[in-house]
């Protein structure tokens, strides 16, 4: 490796940015060395993604300076950023669904390339790249047909397909299970060895302490300085982020769980998916966790139950009586709720305001017989939830697409957690949510359970699922391989069941 001329590969200094009257970044500084993994942390809405987008050319800064390898740069668009060697995996998936995996990976090259497609070479290179990452994805598949995990992998492959100087990953692991995360980290370490500078954004502090060299914390658009990972610990980072100590991340589960199952599924199987022989029950007030590896069928199980996908067989009981669910409408009619893991496509209404998003599931309580909405009640309810979930926004009328990722997730949750349900399925409840807000969400889940609701939480986040569940079901290849009681909770046990092995 050639000895670098400048100490820092990248220096961003005095960066400020406002959207209209909202000031998002104020005089932010960050410096990244060659071959460094630099963690960028902060609460939801602190300005992390915005800073990255300025670096890559999506947004233009209002003031400040960006220096790459000693030369000032000003990318006007992401293409210019790419040419300069800045590649980003954005927080929101942005793939072209009607093209193949291979084309997506090399999309930026297609734009610049000659006349004819070289399908053979394109596919070969893409497949080699994907294989080298250790994920099993067919490069000729159409992106539309991939799972969300696979899509995320394609995003990562896309970013490293080019020779890159600075690689930015904005919350790349929110849909990953522990094995996927391990694979990703191995890849990042390889890139680091090659001297590539990596900026890594995540709300999983464990990850950060595993992989990062340096940490920069943003708070309300102001940077609080950078520290080497070795010189700090989790608690002080949290303190920097939210300005206070965090005692217990997971609320104490001291509530009474009902005797009888409120909800029961027997021998469920899906028509066009891997789910088969799924049986389980949830008691009133119980929080049941579903763990498993990516692609094991957790999401599909929830969707089957909710009526979003077609069942092949299976019976469902609610409060002891058999019910038929053929569509989400039926499910909602039985007061069953479902929060999707894919908030952009299935969770929120991006072009609509926060108020209109949240109200969608709860018109019953705020409207008259003829469907006229009591706007005062609506505001009251929505403002209450914004406050309770600490959604960072200037008003309830802001369109959800202008919220930060974590705040969008809170909106998706608010929609379901605010109404009276009997059972609720939450798929990856805290995707992209900061530690502070996670607590609020866990509290809310707890409160909901306290009301006698049966809660089913699907999560790839090990500490999370162990922290909030009363019982964990572990999925393996489309069916539950085993069940863990509270005293059996451990990462090892979950992983063993996940890969289809008995406990030691």
């Amino acid at each position: 490796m050639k000895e670098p001329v400048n100490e820092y590969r990248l220096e961003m200094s005095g960066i400020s940015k406002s959207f209209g009257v909202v000031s998002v970044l104020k005089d932010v500084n960050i410096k990244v060395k060659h071959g460094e993994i630099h963690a960028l942390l902060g609460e939801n809405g602190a300005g992390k993604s915005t800073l990255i987008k300025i670096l890559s050319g999506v947004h233009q800064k209002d003031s400040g300076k960006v220096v790459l390898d000693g030369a000032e740069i000003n990318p006007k668009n992401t293409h210019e950023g790419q040419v300069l060697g800045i590649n980003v995996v954005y927080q929101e998936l942005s793939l072209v669904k009607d093209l193949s995996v291979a084309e997506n990976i090399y999309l930026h090259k297609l734009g610049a390339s000659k006349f004819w497609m070289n399908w053979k070479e394109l596919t070969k290179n893409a497949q080699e790249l994907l294989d080298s990452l250790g994920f099993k994805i067919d490069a000729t598949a159409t992106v539309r047909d991939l799972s969300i995990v696979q899509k995320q992998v394609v995003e990562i492959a896309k970013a490293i397909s080019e020779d890159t100087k600075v690689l930015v990953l904005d919350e790349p692991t929110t849909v990953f299970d522990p094995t996927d995360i391990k694979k990703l980290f191995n890849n990042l370490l390889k890139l680091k060895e090659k001297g590539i500078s990596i900026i890594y954004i995540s709300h999983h502090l464990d990850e950060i302490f595993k992989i990062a060299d340096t940490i920069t914390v943003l708070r309300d658009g102001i940077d609080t300085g950078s520290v080497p990972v070795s010189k700090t610990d989790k608690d002080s980072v949290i303190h920097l982020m939210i300005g206070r100590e965090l005692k217990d991340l997971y609320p104490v589960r001291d509530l009474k769980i009902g005797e009888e199952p409120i909800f029961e599924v027997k021998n469920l199987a899906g028509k066009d998916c891997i789910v088969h022989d799924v049986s389980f029950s949830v008691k009133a007030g119980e929080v049941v966790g579903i763990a498993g590896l990516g692609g094991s069928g957790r999401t599909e199980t929830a969707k089957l139950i909710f009526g979003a996908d077609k069942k092949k067989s299976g019976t469902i009981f609610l409060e002891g009586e058999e019910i038929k669910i053929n569509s989400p409408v039926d499910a909602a009619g039985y007061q069953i709720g479902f929060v999707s893991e894919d908030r952009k496509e299935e969770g929120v209404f991006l072009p609509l305001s926060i108020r209109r998003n949240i109200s969608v599931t709860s018109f019953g309580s705020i409207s008259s017989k003829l469907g006229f909405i009591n706007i005062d009640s609506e505001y009251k309810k929505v403002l209450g939830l914004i406050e309770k979930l600490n959604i960072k926004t200037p008003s309830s009328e802001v369109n959800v697409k202008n919220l930060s990722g974590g705040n969008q997730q809170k909106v998706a949750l608010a929609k379901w957690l605010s109404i009276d349900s009997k059972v609720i399925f939450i798929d990856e409840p805290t995707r992209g949510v900061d530690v502070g807000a996670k607590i609020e969400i866990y509290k809310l889940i707890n409160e909901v359970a306290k009301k006698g609701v049966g809660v089913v939480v699907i999560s790839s986040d090990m500490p999370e699922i162990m922290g909030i569940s009363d019982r964990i079901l572990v999925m393996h290849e489309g069916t539950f391989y085993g069940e863990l009681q509270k005293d059996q909770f451990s990462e090892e046990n979950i992983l063993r069941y996940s890969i289809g092995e008995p406990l030691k």
Partner: protein
Amino acid sequence: MALTLKEQLSSPSGILKFLVKYNTVFIFILLLIFSALISDVFFTSVNLSNLLKQVSGIGIISIGMLIVILTGGIDLSVGSMVALLAVTFAILVNLVVLPLAILITIAIGFGLGSISGYLVAYQKMAPFVATLALMTIARGLGFIYSKGSPITFKTYGGLYMSNFANNSTLGIPNIALVFFIIVIITMVMLRYNVFGRLIIAIGSNEEASRLSGIKVNKYKFLVYAISGALAATAAIIVASRTNLGSPNMGMAWELDAIAAVVIGGASLNGGKGTAINTLMGVLILGLIGNILNLLNVPSYPQQVVKGGIIIFAVLLQRFESK
């Protein structure tokens, strides 16, 4: 923290937002002023009342088109429906008492719209194809039932409707009042009624709506049925204005209606659009035709100028919303 509507309006950025949201209103006012300046007869009450009468029919179907477009669909059948339903109304008005004739016509409109709605919502047909098929079918039926000739109103009920359609109340043509009432109901519905909220939600993210337990199919079905009922209302109005129902009515009106909705800033992808802006779109299109007629622009160049003004108006709108 969150502001109420009033607070939002009173802040400077609130006014800006208001301007952006209703910029079509300003384009319309601009065109209005311009028209008044270049033609001395434009701003006479007779002409303004003519203008209102001329746009009411298309205006009413544009509102139906708006709610269909809000769900992300499209209804190409409305023009032909106007023809078929005008014929239907003319037949009925000569057969049964007026209120019944009106009722049955609107019911038939609702029923025909339901067919499109059924095909789109429950058979998952592309709205363009389903309503195109219905467009052909409705026009064909119109010709069949009328035997190709206009059917004239012959009864007292017909006479009553014809008087109603050509007279004014408080200076505003009655049929324009009907149109305005429909606009106001739609405005209220889209803002304050669950139905309106849900169709906007469906148009902005159908999958999320489905997973929110919204009866997506039911609402998609309903908007086409309502569009059909509004086409019936428009048909009654245009038939009454000419005293007859002809299978040639409403030719290509679907295009005008879509244009009005889109000029009113709605997105054909759904989820975006307001009744007031659609009203403006309707008035802008009507005004362009009217002023060119008043200025005696010959027909061939008139089409060219009309296209030019549409482009100009929409560019202006873009400029304002920047």
